[in-house]
């Protein structure tokens, strides 16, 4: 038995004709994932030199839903793309001079980096969206860093292959009368079909009207008060503090501060806003929130417009226990300290006694079980 060589792969389904057609679609998917990912990381930065926009309210929901749907649809595209070029894995260098060997080695190294990082991104992203963490590294840090590696090596790959792609796309795929298994056109259509099925089968977690067909979606969209929960009160270990009778929200600005119990908050002017919760894991759902406008509370302690506000939760630990509500969001009329959802008092898992809800923000920053709002000087 010997190691197979590229010539042993006689199927017409391998080769540049299909690689040049699946490749660009995969490239577009990776570009969408990269840009929407950068946006999400910027939205989570406490200090933003360019203020993150508060409108449209559904902007974050759209971009992050797109991130996960595109990444999911990229799975069949990547598998077929790698299938079309698989024989090249067994290439042997044509000549044995040093320069040629060096160039070949560098090209193959860049391909290895591209394949390894692309598979890494899709595998870790899919697991993360289902809240499965079978590793010990930080998902957020590694998924972000490897995305730069993947897109960098992809840009390099496009540079190397641009001429081949142009050449191939100039030649239409010929009709094959009786292919032994599948024609090239057949495999191409199967690939688009698989990507479409992958998207439809999972997108229901962010696209409400697809819920019934998304049999593989991580969330059906149901939950207490018709809204899913990312982290429960039990998991955050806040139940005793959140249900304590003496709870009050503290709002501070320098040496001025007010403490408001839930009854006192309910006695203030109540506003109702329809705003989505959009999680970094890709799911999202819309809710009708009622509560006190954050700006009204900030006025009570004389906070000037444009001030950043540190938001503290009753949670004792967790990376998002303390977050920053940037001035633009704090001043937006739709930003609320929500006390009710869908006309009923907020459920404990949704942040009772009070939670923050703002337009166009990552779900992890929509702090639940509020304790303090501290206006920064």
């Amino acid at each position, binding site marked *: 038995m010997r190691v197979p060589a590229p010539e042993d792969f006689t199927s017409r389904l391998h080769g540049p004709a299909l690689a040049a057609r699946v490749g660009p679609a995969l490239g577009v998917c990776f570009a969408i994932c990269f840009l929407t990912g950068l946006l999400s990381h910027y939205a989570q930065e406490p200090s933003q030199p360019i203020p993150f926009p508060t409108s449209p309210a559904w902007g974050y929901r759209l971009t992050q839903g797109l991130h996960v749907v595109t990444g999911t649809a990229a799975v*069949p595209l990547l598998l077929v793309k790698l299938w079309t070029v698989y024989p090249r894995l067994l290439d042997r260098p044509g000549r044995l001079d040093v320069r040629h060997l060096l160039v070949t080695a560098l090209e193959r190294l860049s391909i290895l980096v591209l394949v390894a990082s692309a598979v890494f991104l899709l595998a870790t992203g899919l697991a993360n969206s289902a809240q499965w963490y079978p*590793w010990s590294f930080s998902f957020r840090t590694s998924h972000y860093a490897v995305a730069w590696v993947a897109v960098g090596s992809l840009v390099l790959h*496009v540079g190397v292959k*641009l001429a081949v792609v142009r050449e191939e796309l100039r030649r239409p795929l010929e009709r094959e009368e009786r*292919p032994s298994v599948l024609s090239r056109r057949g495999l191409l259509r*199967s*690939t688009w079909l698989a990507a479409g*099925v992958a998207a439809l089968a999972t997108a229901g977690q962010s696209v409400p009207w697809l819920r019934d067909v998304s049999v593989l979606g991580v969330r059906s969209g149901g939950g207490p008060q018709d809204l899913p929960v990312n982290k429960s009160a039990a998991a955050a270990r806040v139940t005793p503090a959140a249900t304590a009778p003496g709870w009050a929200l503290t709002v501070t600005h320098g040496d001025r501060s007010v403490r408001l119990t839930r009854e006192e908050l309910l006695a203030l002017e109540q506003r109702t806003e329809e705003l989505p919760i959009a999680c970094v894991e890709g799911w999202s759902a819309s809710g009708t929130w009622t509560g006190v406008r954050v700006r009204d509370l900030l006025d009570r302690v004389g906070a000037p417009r444009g001030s950043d506000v540190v938001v503290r939760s009753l949670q004792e630990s967790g990376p998002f226990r303390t977050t920053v509500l940037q001035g633009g969001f704090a001043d937006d009329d739709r930003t609320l300290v929500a006390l009710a959802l869908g006309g009923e008092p907020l459920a404990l898992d949704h942040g009772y006694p009070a939670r923050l809800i703002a337009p166009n923000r990552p779900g992890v920053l929509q702090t639940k079980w509020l304790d303090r709002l501290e206006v920064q000087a």
Partner: protein
Amino acid sequence: MTARLGLGALGVAMAAYGVWLLVTRESDLVDVATWLVGGAVLHDGVLVPVVLLLGLVCSRWLPWAARGPAAVGLVVLGSVTLLAVPVLGRFGAREDNPTLLDRDYTSGWLVLAGLVAVGVVAATLVRMRRVGRGSNTRSG
């Protein structure tokens, strides 16, 4: 050529920035490396050889009319099954959060697999009839 060199330089710079991010911010580099190499090795060394073998077996044993539809079925169901591993295994399920992984994924997958199977059989029958008619006209 200039455009290609520019793309190459930009790509190398972006990838280098990613490596720098990883090395300076991630504390568990061994685990990251394991996942990076593991993914590529599993794909190139296990998944593709298995599919190649499957293709070889199917091209020997399946009648011609069924081969194409079966291949389409494999592309669709195989890739969708692979990407659904995290939900099918329900590895991230938590008792305190019933809104997470709250579907019957096995039934959902069976419905999907059933639809694909119906599609493969229907396409095979259509192709068999078409081939049959083709040979009839030729013999007639």
